[in-house]
């Protein structure tokens, strides 16, 4: 009975050496006592290691022996790779030990702790995530390993990736950044909280449409939906602070991420989108086609809902930014090829250089102006290229000849120009 009681208070067996140590309020540990405690970190009994480590947390760093840091880091890496399995103790007892271990290891700012931090530490504290993210490329293999082996820690891994692509972007290569963006988006469906966290912490304003989708998805659950809704305000504010050039670059990054290792129809769609986006951030016509192409690729299940939301909504957002800066058509203006003008709420692009005059208003002179940003649905005065896709009376058509549309040339009426999509 007495032995049972002793066990319950943790003074049994190998723990007895600790009982010889003074209480913190009574005295400082002597160097010999500190050495004894450090030696106990080698004990095969984890509770002994735990008690010794807890006592050592009170010792100032200057009083710790030189080998202490490497020893603690090695121990943490070991505990992380070979988790303690002890059904006789409450999980929080192990948790307390491991928090002490990680916090002690973190104090040394040593990259050799990355294996343990990736598997264990990033689940515990933001400071650990920052350290791991700050190590950049060196951390990635360990995070990949953790991703494979610790499903419960994936939201923390995503948050750490978020820090890497955002606050510590200089510590990783461009291709690594692209890969991380892609992995974040791929995991968003199953790790909604992780995606929201990464989007906020980076921050990733182009992720706003995905966050919006999470906020409105029926299966998001109260917390994911609420957190997504709360994340929208700061992400929107951040996006609104970006220039069209920055938005365009952001969209380009995400397109690369989505298209990484794409094959088949996805590769085809990606090629089209990449070409369209290459036209630059101020070309309303190509942006509009970008959005349309993304829409149709989603309808074909080429893109996932989140991929589509990110590409189409950001293209739309960029297009909106571009269009709102388009000047209204006016008389006596010398328009050059490619100039844009708005007229009666629609947008046009100049096809021939000319000086505007009465009667040459954009909708009246197809030879001078082509309509842009007309949406997915077929419209007159638009320059369609081979392969462009439109909707007309709920049927999809593909342009088989380049032409400028006009009344009477609606797709079902001109089989030479349009073919229904099967």
């Amino acid at each position: 009975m007495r032995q049972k009681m002793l066990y319950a208070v943790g003074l049994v067996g190998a723990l007895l050496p600790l009982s010889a140590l003074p209480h913190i309020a009574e005295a400082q540990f002597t160097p010999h006592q500190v050495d004894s405690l450090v030696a106990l970190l080698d004990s095969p009994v984890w509770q002994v290691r735990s008690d010794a480590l807890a006592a050592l947390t009170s010792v100032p760093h200057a009083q710790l022996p030189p080998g202490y840091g490497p020893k603690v880091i090695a121990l943490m890496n070991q505990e992380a790779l070979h988790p303690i399995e002890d059904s006789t103790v409450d999980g929080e007892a192990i948790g307390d030990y491991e928090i002490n271990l990680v916090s002690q290891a973190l104090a040394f700012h040593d990259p050799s702790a990355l294996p343990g931090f990736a598997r264990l530490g990033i689940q515990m504290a933001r400071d650990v995530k920052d350290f791991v993210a700050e190590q950049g490329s060196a951390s990635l293999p360990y995070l990949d390993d953790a991703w494979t082996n610790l499903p419960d820690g994936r939201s923390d891994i995503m948050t750490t990736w978020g820090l890497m692509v955002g606050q510590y972007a200089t510590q990783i290569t461009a291709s690594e950044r692209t890969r991380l963006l892609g992995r974040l988006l791929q995991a968003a469906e199953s790790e909604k909280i992780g995606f929201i966290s990464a989007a906020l912490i980076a921050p990733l304003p182009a992720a706003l449409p995905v966050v919006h989708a999470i906020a409105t998805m029926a299966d998001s659950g109260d917390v994911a939906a609420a957190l997504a809704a709360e994340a929208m305000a700061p992400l929107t504010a951040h996006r609104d602070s970006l220039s069209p050039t920055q938005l365009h670059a952001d969209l380009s990054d995400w397109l690369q991420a989505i298209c990484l290792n794409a094959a088949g129809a996805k590769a085809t769609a990606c090629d089209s989108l990449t070409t369209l986006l290459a036209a630059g951030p101020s070309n309303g016509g190509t942006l509009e086609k970008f959005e349309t192409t993304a829409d149709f690729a989603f309808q074909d299940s080429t893109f996932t809902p989140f991929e589509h939301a990110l590409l189409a909504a950001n293209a739309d957002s960029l297009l909106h930014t571009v269009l709102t800066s388009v000047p209204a058509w006016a008389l006596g203006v010398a328009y050059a090829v490619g100039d844009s003008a708005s007229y009666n709420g629609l947008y046009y692009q100049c096809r021939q250089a000319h000086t505007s005059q009465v009667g040459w208003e954009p909708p009246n002179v197809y030879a001078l102006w082509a309509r842009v940003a007309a949406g997915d649905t077929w419209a007159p005065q638009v320059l369609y290229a081979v392969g462009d896709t439109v909707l007309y009376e709920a049927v999809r058509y593909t342009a088989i000849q380049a032409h400028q549309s006009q009344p009477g040339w609606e797709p079902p009426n001109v089989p030479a120009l349009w073919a229904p999509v099967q």
Partner: protein
Amino acid sequence: MGDSHSRRRGILVVFTLAVLAGACGTELPPAPQVRADLRDGVTPAESLAILSQGDTTTASPSAAPTSTQATETCTIAWSAPDTVTGCSVPVPTVNPTVPWLQHSGKAVDPGEIEYRGPISIRFGVPVKGLTLTSTGALSCTGTFGTLIGYRHDSVVASADNVLTDPADCGSDSVTFGVTGQFPPDRVIDSLVIGGVNPWTFPVGNLTGRALLKYTLTYEPQSAGSTSVVIQSVQTANNGSFTTLATEDTITLTAVTMPASLADSVRWSVTDFTGDQVPSIPPDSASLGRGATIRWEVPKQDSVRWHAFKHPGSLDQKSLAYLIVASVTDATGATVHSKPDTVKQDEIDTMREEYVELRVTFLPVPARSDFSAEPHCDAPCLNTGDYGQAIVKPTFSGKLQSLRTHWENPGKQWQRNSLYRNPVHQIIHLTEEIGKQQSRTSRHMFGCAADLQTFPAGLSKSTATATDSLHAKDFWKGLKMVADSAHYFWVEPMKMSGIGHVHVQTATGCS
């Protein structure tokens, strides 16, 4: 005689133009601080007998004290604060100390202090033959004050004071003083002098105030015999203590009669048997002799904490000792003091848990770390065993801030527990849950909290996949917000489970 008194009275009666009024509360003498014990040949049964007897007790009838000195008359007077003359007993403790043995209806003379409340005198030894006299001035119409005598905090005598010389009142109805006394053989150990009425009164067209400057004479009850009285039991924490090396020293002081026996005082410190705690006493051989000794509370056996369940009572936990001082006079008679006790209060009882259970990874909490907080069943702040808890301001503030950030529609907030005393954390919860609990939990220092996730109460057999998913999202979401504070450390889900999020500090605790 009457004329001379009238002249003095004429000087002392001071006139004021103001109308004065006032009311004062009454005050009983302070309760004794300690109780007692035995070792040194005194059995527990004897010690209880000692407790029920007087302050000076012989060990056996055959060893009755004998008179060795002539009767002494002690005097304490308003004119000589903190002084006793005519005998060798301790200076009584007088409250208030300023003014010393004086009542005044209004401060008028230089240095005079208005005081209308009761004057309490604790003699330190039993006394008899008490007589009070006064000089000053007071109205002849009214009441002239009271004397109430106590023995072991019970009233054993009372008397109304009378005018020293009623014939002195004359036409102005003002006189110089009062007298009062108890029956000569009435033994008391403390006295309260009540004030007169009125405190101010008309004198012609003016207003006078009562001024009474007292002198007390009395005989030590034990004068002429041998006695020993425990005068003080001093501990590190103003009456309490722990077995921590910096807090385990207790200083005992006794007064003997005759004073020459001071160096021969023997002490007994034993477990106080009036509770359920087996307090390990100091080795009697180590206590030493003399009017003042110091001893250290021995390290205790921590197994004792298993003897009771949550929440238990202080009667089961607080260390307590019985203390007796003894002297032997020239005749060979041994005299024991009234026993005294020293006992841990609630906070030091809690702190003792940290010492005995070796919760050493942070300093043993200071007394000031604790504050009153009723214990209760979760969810609540203090799920421990006591009516005190540690609530650290920084951690508590960060937790409140987390709540503010979190608590919105769709996101419930429920703190299941924050503080747990070591015995509850390490012993009770281990027994209740059937798994060994953490000995390094920061719940024991008020720097950890368990936050409920929702939907709550999921069981593996009944929870739907959607419920589990939402509970996991709740866990991850709350953890995400906690992370953003750059302050909390969170136990991984594998350790805490999805039922709650455990947040804590990692280094320090403030």
